[in-house]
């Protein structure tokens, strides 16, 4: 029979399945023997961590949805019922709400890893852009999810952010009415946000599949930023990185569980425990922490449309990053200036986050404007220029070379076999 896969699985049942749909061969190839650079550090753990959290979010989300009512008069109470009456409902809710925060922690670290080690550079440009799409999907999902409990911050955060679209010239007001399904954030808005919040995570799952596929075409980057030259530079993903990832996952999970069990409302705003009141605006309308830097950028521009453009621009600039950075060297380890300049970016992001948490008054307003200026300058001015003027350090010949006989600053007895042919 032409086209059938020749399975090498021993087990007859698995071989029968694998011949007809080679999923087992696929798993063995992509997650079993897959040649992975052997010099990964723990910064490479966070992609896998993010994937596990996605699974947790989908699982807890589905079970929460069995008890949640997406109607404005019942939503808040249905969440309280989950917290009080549903078996382990409190755990589902806290795991889901804090899982969102931990998802963003993992993804932000994952992105900064990419920025430091040049993982967005050729040939991984598309991989990076798919990642930015994932970030956008996550932000949309998180935004809509936060509306569902229908607390004060749910309602007013939704009002502020949906109102932004009125800045679009000509069609702005119509767009906002269309988003709302009415003349303010109301029941139609809640209902559609619930439907979309249930949908998008599965879209995220599909795009994660593309993300991993793109990665497996190019192979992973590594801390040295140089290409794999021979099989000796690699290790099979299982058991080396399955185990290493498990360790990192355990540490991450421990922090996650500590927050769920002992500080479950640490990330949240107390105002969201007040049922939504369209006639009473809270003193401070603040999004969740992972949106604060974007919120700060939005409010640092005195013009409404300008603020919206700059906020989306902050993500747009990430999209085109592979073409902004002109350096031929990937890893910051061999870029003595970028290695230091890089850190200004996370610092400015944290600063922007703090600005976003405060009212748009001095001194935060000026700090926010300067930090916004730096953020865009980093990508649009510094990175393009650095590539031209920076003198990179000499790159090692290969990943294995520092540990081979006679190579690298290691004691002479600590050598491996000589390098194999590719």
């Amino acid at each position, binding site marked *: 029979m032409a086209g059938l896969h020749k399975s090498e699985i021993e087990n007859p049942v698995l071989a029968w399945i694998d011949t007809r749909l080679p999923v087992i061969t696929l798993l063995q190839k992509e997650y*079993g*023997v897959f*040649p992975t650079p052997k010099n990964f550090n723990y910064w490479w753990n966070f992609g896998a961590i993010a994937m596990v959290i996605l699974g947790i979010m989908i*699982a*807890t989300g589905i*079970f929460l949805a*069995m*008890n949640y009512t997406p109607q404005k008069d019942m939503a808040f109470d249905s969440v309280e*019922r989950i917290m*009080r*009456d*549903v*078996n*382990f*409902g409190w*755990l*589902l809710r806290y795991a889901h709400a804090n899982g969102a925060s931990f998802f963003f922690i993992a993804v932000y670290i994952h992105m900064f890893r990419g920025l430091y080690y040049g993982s967005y550079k050729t040939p991984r440009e598309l991989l990076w852009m798919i990642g930015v799409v994932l970030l956008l999907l996550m932000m949309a999902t998180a935004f809509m999810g936060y509306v569902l409990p229908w607390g004060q911050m749910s309602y007013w955060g939704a009002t502020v952010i949906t109102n932004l679209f009125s800045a679009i010239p000509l069609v702005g007001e119509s767009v906002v009415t269309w988003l709302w399904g009415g003349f303010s954030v109301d029941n139609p808005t809640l209902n559609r946000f619930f439907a979309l919040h249930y949908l998008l995570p599965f879209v995220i799952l599909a795009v994660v599949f593309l993300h991993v596929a793109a990665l497996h075409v190019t192979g992973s980057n590594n801390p040295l930023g140089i290409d794999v030259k021979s*099989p*000796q530079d*690699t*290790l*099979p993903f*299982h*058991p*080396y990185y399955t185990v290493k990832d*498990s360790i990192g996952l355990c540490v991450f999970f421990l922090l996650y569980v500590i927050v769920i069990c002992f500080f479950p409302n640490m990330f949240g705003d107390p105002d969201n425990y007040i049922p939504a009141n369209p006639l009473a605006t809270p003193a401070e309308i603040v999004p969740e922490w992972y949106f604060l830097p974007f919120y700060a950028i939005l409010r640092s521009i005195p013009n409404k449309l300008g603020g919206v453009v700059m906020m989306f621009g902050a993500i747009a600039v990430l999209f085109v990053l592979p073409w902004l950075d002109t350096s031929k060297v990937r890893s910051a380890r061999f870029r003595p200036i970028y290695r230091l300049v890089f850190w200004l970016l996370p610092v400015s992001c944290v600063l922007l986050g703090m600005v976003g948490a405060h009212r748009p008054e001095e001194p935060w307003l000026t700090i926010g404007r300067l930090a916004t200026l730096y953020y865009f300058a980093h990508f649009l001015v510094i990175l393009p220029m650095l590539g031209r003027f920076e003198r990179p350090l000499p790159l090692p010949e290969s990943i294995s070379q520092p540990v081979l006989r006679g190579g690298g600053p290691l004691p002479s007895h600590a050598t*491996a*076999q000589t390098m194999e042919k590719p």
Partner: protein
Amino acid sequence: MADTMSATTHAPGHAPEKDVTKRDFLKLVTVSAAAIGVGAIVWPLIDSMNPSADVLALSSTDVDLAPIPAGQAITVLWRGKPIFVRHRTPQEIKEAQDVQPSQLIDPATDASRVKSGHDQWLVVVGICTHLGCIPLGNKPTEPRGDWGGWFCPCHGSQYDTSGRVRHGPAPANLAIPPYAFTTDTKIKIG
């Protein structure tokens, strides 16, 4: 191919024919710990689908018997099901007690279906044991069948004054829910 380390580690599932090694022990312990972890995660998800505290709170119903005169019956809702509470007349009690269990489709004594000292109170689940309709007979104006109990209009099953099936197609007597007398005139069902 790859370096020597991976050659020996990359042998999944092929335990050496020789003794059990420390590596095998470590693998077993790790997989067991992981399995326990997965179980600890999966159990709350599954248990969240079990009846929640508010559903369990509605799982018992108190009924005041004082307003029900002899010969009358009322229907109360318990766990979403109709419960017939019938105040039997002495004649109905005697008819029920006089029946030989061997004559019955589903043998049961009347004594086993009421609480001792409270023979006049019959508490049964008002769902026909055939296909689940609610039998008629609570009101004296409704047909009660040939044995004075209940008559199911769907397929003609008939029950006596002890709620026992006397004429099919129902295979079993009307079920007795768990209940207890909290006072002489009050019961708690469930």
